[in-house]
């Protein structure tokens, strides 16, 4: 379970100015659900997820992973999370297996346990033929799968993915969707999955609930159906544009939150 409570973050920019990257984002992601963090580019999604991973200290608000406060127990919180960050670089001179086992060891697994997990993940992510190859020559999709396996190596109860479909082709995106659905199901461990994206189709196809973020604020949250009902639209894209770009299209952002 992941809970983000009204976090805010302001960055110092050049010449004494500052940028309010996140003003007020909140999100509740229960176990066994896929929760989408939907917003246009620059809405503050990556900053929010970086605060969740303890990489940035929020100015205000609170982030919790399974009841553990990220601010006071960052390492315990990280141990319960698998994070596929915006940057998902691999060690290019190591094989896929070595990359995965390295993170397993850093998560505290024994050598044997880390190798066993790497084998299991290779099976479920269809990585088997790549495991002993150096990651240098991998395609985008292969890199993403390796990075995902690396993030999941300690079998975390909470999974955080920052725009995981970026740069993936349609088949790789479909495969990823299947993997996430499996991880959500009781057979896959009933994980709590938080998934940031700017693509509404992905949210429609995958997410149990959505939090729409614009200009650093959560402007709406609920299931896709609830958001459609709230905006009175049939098409989710129209609903999203209404919610996220209220200011730009000249309508008051007085829609509140549904959930």
């Amino acid at each position, binding site marked *: 379970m992941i809970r983000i409570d009204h976090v805010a973050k302001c960055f110092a920019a050049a010449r004494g100015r500052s940028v309010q990257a996140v003003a007020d984002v909140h999100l509740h992601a229960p176990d066994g659900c896929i929760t989408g963090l939907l917003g246009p580019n620059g809405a503050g999604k990556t900053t929010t997820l970086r605060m969740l991973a303890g*990489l940035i200290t929020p100015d205000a608000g609170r982030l919790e992973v399974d009841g553990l406060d990220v601010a006071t127990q*960052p*390492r*315990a919180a990280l*141990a319960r999370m698998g994070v596929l*960050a*915006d*940057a998902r670089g691999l060690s290019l001179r*190591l094989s896929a297996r070595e990359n995965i086992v390295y993170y397993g060891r*850093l998560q505290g697994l024994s050598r044997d346990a880390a190798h066993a997990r790497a084998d299991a993940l290779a099976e479920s992510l269809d990585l088997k033929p790549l495991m002993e190859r150096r990651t240098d020559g991998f395609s985008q999709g292969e890199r993403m799968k390796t990075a995902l396996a690396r993030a999941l190596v300690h079998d975390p109860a909470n999974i955080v993915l920052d725009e995981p479909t970026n740069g993936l082709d349609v088949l790789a995106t479909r495969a990823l969707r299947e993997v996430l659905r499996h991880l959500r199901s009781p057979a896959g461990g009933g994980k709590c999955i938080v998934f940031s994206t700017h693509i509404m189709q992905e949210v429609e196809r995958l997410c149990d609930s959505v939090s729409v973020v614009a200009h650093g604020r959560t402007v709406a949250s609920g299931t896709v159906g609830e958001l459609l009902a709230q905006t009175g639209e049939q098409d989710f894209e129209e609903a999203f544009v209404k919610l996220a770009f209220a200011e730009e299209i000249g309508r008051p952002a007085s829609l509140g939150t549904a959930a």
Partner: protein
Amino acid sequence: MSGLSLLAIVLRKELADALRDRRTLIVVLVSSVLLGPLLLVALSGLIATLEAQAEKREVVVSGIEHAPALRNFIERQSYAVTPAPADYEAKLRSQKLGDPVLVIPPGFEAALVRGEQPVLQVVSDTGNKAAEAGAGRVQRLLAAYMRERSALSLALRGVSPQLLEPMQVEEHDLASAQGRAAQLTGMLPFFVIMAVVYGALNAALDTTAGERERGSLEPLLANPAPRWALVGGKWGAVFALAMLIAVLCCLSFLPAQWLLRSDTLQAMFQFGWVEALRFIAVLLPLAAALSAVLMAVAIRCKTFKEAQANSTVVVLAASLLPLMTLFNQGGEAWWHAWVPGLAQFTLMTRVLKGEALAAQPIAISLGVCSVLTVVSVVFVARHLRAAAVR
């Protein structure tokens, strides 16, 4: 899992990673490990040529037929007289002739007997090092001839030749054999320090700026490992690589001395296992500090290329500081021990001279390097989080 075992995991991974970068390793090995011995061998070749020149008992003379008595003297000194080629001036200029030419004018012998102070010329070219080196030999030979002639003249008049030499001069060189050799082998520590720098450089940049550029620093920090363990492991790997190259460089001088062509240099250049081990001991703190400083410089850089440009300052400082000893003719100053690089250079020079290593400069350089290492590693650990997200 304890922080130390996490540190060991990071260290092993970074070492494996760096050792797989074969191309870089080979370049470093060739430039740092082979270059020193190669230069040493080349230098020994040069010295051997000079020695052969000095020992060559041969004088090139133009017009020896005008001075039969001088010829007799030269041959009595067991020197051979070789007639000079007709175009000796051109050959000296173009360095084709490696000996100075003694030019005897016609009527020399008769003028000498009459006491007319005939003029002899020793023709050489300052641009021709070999001929220049031989000029002193010819001058000394002529001086000896003059002494002999004047001694004979004085003896004929019943004057003791000792009147001409009212005193005797003896030379004593205080330098030991190793001390003399250190003048020639003084560049060795320079190469060893460069080996440490280049051993550390690539790994230090790759584990910091390279990690940022690849986008693998942010995911690394999503692991629940303490930052000091991550940075400590990375630093340990860089340090180990720097020392690996330094050890290889020191050991490469052991076989190099078998290849020395100059017997004198071989006799004077004593670089055995003891010296190699002392070198390594002196280099340990320097390698530790350099690794940490290079990482601290690179962690602020977004790309490997930017880090390379920034680290030039450190590389230049490490390579130019030893040159201070060349400019500083007053010998070792007290502050040399406080400057990393310079301190190690001074200590290694002492090892080469066969002098005992004093405890104080070793303790000072150890202290300075330790402080520098700790400060830099802490700096990297503090900047790691900010570097990951920017």
